[in-house]
């Protein structure tokens, strides 16, 4: 019998209300509900989260590493896009 690998799913966890989901890792699963269960059992055993997203890895459209220079390097020398020339008022915590 040939061993067919289950599809890979990427796991995103929201650690507490108000924050955004963050990538935590990946799991193998035969279907969506199993992926959710496996993510729960693999990544939230120590109360790491209050919400889980799973998405099949092959559904993610990713940038091509070969195109890194064209994609990202043009931004590197444009320091004026960083808001470092402003004074941040006291008392602003989450900027």
């Amino acid at each position, binding site marked *: 019998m040939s061993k067919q690998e289950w599809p890979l799913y990427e796991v995103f966890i929201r650690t507490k209300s108000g924050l955004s989901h963050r990538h935590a890792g990946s799991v193998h699963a035969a279907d969506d509900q199993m992926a959710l*269960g*496996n993510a*729960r059992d693999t990544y939230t055993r120590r109360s790491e989260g209050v919400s889980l997203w799973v998405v099949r890895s092959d559904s993610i459209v990713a940038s091509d590493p070969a195109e890194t220079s064209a994609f990202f390097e043009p931004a590197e020398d444009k320091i004026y896009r960083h808001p470092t020339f402003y004074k941040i008022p006291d008392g602003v915590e989450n900027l």
Partner: protein
Amino acid sequence: MTSDEALIAYTLRLADNALILSQRMLETVAAEPELEEELANANFALDFIGQARMLYTHAGELEGQGRSEDDLAFMRDEHEFRSLLLLEQPNGHFGDALVRQFLFEAFYLHLLESLTRCTDQGLSAIAVRALKEVQYHFRHSSQWMIRLGDGTELSHERVQGSLSDAWRYTGEMFVADDVDLAMQKNFDGPDLADIQKLWRRDVEKTVAEATLTLPDDEWMVSGGKQGQHSEHLGFLLAEMQYLQRSFPGVTW
């Protein structure tokens, strides 16, 4: 039997169920077909060990003779265990272990739900906590039933076989004896006839969705709740209790 004796006996039964099932589940650690399933199974087994610990501790306190959780788990003999026959059955293949889990959890879920309303505060507090764990377990085992039953021809055939084999051990869960009746009467414990209806409803629903056939209620074995076990429990206990028996009170 006084009502306190019944409460102790009842608590010990619950503890024995949790412990024996967890021991069986832990046998499959490092032998599951997929890493993620293995983690899930080990997590669930640890949930049951946690429940067993709380229940044994509570039983020991009710008894008041200074027996600890370890004394009750490791120093009692086969005939003193009051766990269900279903739970001591060998793991068999993945479908066998799954069906055992599914049939028990469908029962245990409603039992715990009822126990959250019993008048023994210690037991109801344990039930509140255990219920959340078992709700998730049951979600997991029901989904697997559907996946295998409504899967391939081979998976369907094998899990149907597991269901037919395990069915004869389900009757025992609902036969109320003196302990069950005393628990119901004196502590607002579960009515097993009600639990059976809920169990049947849930099992039928999942079995139908899994395109499986519910076996006929023909011949049911019982005895576990009275300490009459199948040949399998002795071997299980020999392995589980070995260390405490050889080195009583050992810790690390």
